């Protein structure tokens, strides 16, 4: 119905809209704000923090999976391969990591997020729907992402996850039906916010959000990262406890 209304606009209305758009100058440019740059968290929490506080809203199956993960991580029967073998962390765990990352506006049609930690790469297809075929055929630790801008906010939907990762370092569980919805925006000239919504009804009784804030750090370069080697100093990130 909305489409029909658009098509029914008269010539004068289109001309007025066109003129207003040109006169406003930045209207088109404002659709694609520049989020590119290097960002770095200033705080690290091994346990994911809900925006509205409280505990994870686990279903009975989710509670059992979480308890199993925590016990397995503690006694070593479940390896944390994201830290042991440096496989990708998955979303949202990668959002919490205390290493810098970069957002690259490119190549055309894609926003690319490249993390220093385990050189993880997220390719966000812009203004395209998620390919359901890819989600099923090629599950991935970091899933498949599609994004678009809503005003100043990059909105990213991710699905097609492998179920081998955790939502955080404590072993918060997810299924392969997990879907995440991120809203990424600058909240000041030097601060970036990523609010992620977790949708995984088998393990969680409701959708819930976590928020991550990063500082723009174009003064640093992303470094090579190889599992088991000594890496950069993380003393600027509160909450990091290196063993």
């Amino acid at each position, binding site marked *: 119905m909305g489409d029909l209304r658009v098509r029914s606009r008269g010539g004068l209305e289109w001309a007025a809209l*066109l003129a207003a758009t040109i006169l406003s100058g930045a209207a088109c440019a404002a659709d694609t704000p520049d989020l590119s740059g290097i960002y770095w968290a200033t705080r690290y929490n091994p346990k994911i923090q809900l925006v509205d506080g409280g505990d994870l809203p686990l279903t009975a199956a989710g509670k059992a999976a979480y308890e199993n993960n925590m016990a397995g991580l503690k006694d070593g029967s479940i390896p944390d391969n994201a830290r042991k073998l440096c496989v990708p962390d998955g979303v949202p765990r990668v959002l919490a990591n205390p290493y810098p990352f970069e957002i690259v506006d490119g190549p055309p049609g894609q926003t690319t997020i490249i993390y220093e930690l385990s050189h993880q790469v997220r390719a966000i297809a812009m203004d395209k729907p998620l390919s359901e075929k890819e989600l099923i055929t090629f599950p991935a630790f970091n899933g498949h992402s599609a994004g678009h801008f809503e005003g100043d906010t990059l909105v990213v939907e991710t699905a097609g996850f492998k179920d081998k990762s955790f939502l955080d370092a404590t072993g918060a569980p997810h299924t392969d039906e997990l879907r995440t919805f991120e809203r990424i925006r600058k909240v000041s000239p030097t601060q970036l916010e990523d609010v992620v919504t977790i949708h995984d009804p088998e393990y969680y009784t409701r959708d819930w959000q976590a928020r991550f804030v990063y500082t723009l750090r174009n003064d640093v370069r992303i470094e090579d990262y190889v599992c088991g080697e000594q890496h950069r100093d993380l003393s600027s990130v509160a909450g990091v406890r290196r063993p």
Partner: protein
Amino acid sequence: MSKFAFKGTLAAAFCAGIAVWAMNGHAFAQAATQAPAKGGIPDLASVDFAWLALGADWRDPPPGSGHGPIKPDPDHPFHGNVAGEGQVTIRIGNYRDPVLKPWAAAQMLASNEEALSGKRSVPFAAQARCWPGGVPGQLLYPAEPFYFIQTPKQVWMIWERDHMVRRIYLTDKHSETVTPSWFGESIGHYDNGELVVDTVGLSTRNSYIDNFRTPHTEKEHVVERFKVSADGKTLEASVVVDDSDTFNEPLHLVQRWRKVKNPLLETVCAENNGDYFHQNLFPLPEADKPDF
């Protein structure tokens, strides 16, 4: 298509329309004359294509270019998986090549003997065992494509294999001090349609020039020139490796890729990559304690 995606597409189309409409004659003519050359910048990056290596060994440079790549030991010819009928062999490098300094020849011989004795039945190959391939060795990964991102100040090379990333800063000077690392510090510029990359600061642990395990020192200096063929279907890199502590003269190497229509997917090297057939494979990178 989702409501949001439709809105985005509509907005993009509308803005593109405005942009075309707004071009006056001068602006349009200028764009038309610049478009074919793109300011001398090769078209390397796209969401619609990637580059798949045509083999895991360096090709010879054009005649007269200088010393080419290290070849197989004549006593142990190499027969690869795609070389047709015959027994597949492991790569045994020609440690007798006079271009090698004595220490480098001795190291290659030791590596050959380790492989031939069966002590390590599959010789080290960085990316097979999840280590970065270094520069220029990373260019030899054959089975999965790699991707470029080009921006005015920087170029990224991203390999699908274990999502390895190289960064090239489009500037004319290296940093005053460079801490050696797997991919070193790469600076670059465009020259007559080629991407020229100059790399220093390369660390040496588990880092080789090729799959014959030709070593190098931290003195290694690499210049790569990436050029797309006239039909746009092939990418070629001409590489010069200068390391006077390892080689008696620079090595001149060539690699080629074909354009493939592959989206960038996640391939995780360390997943299901165990030594299932007890071949004493080189260990994967592994942390004995969590990083944080």
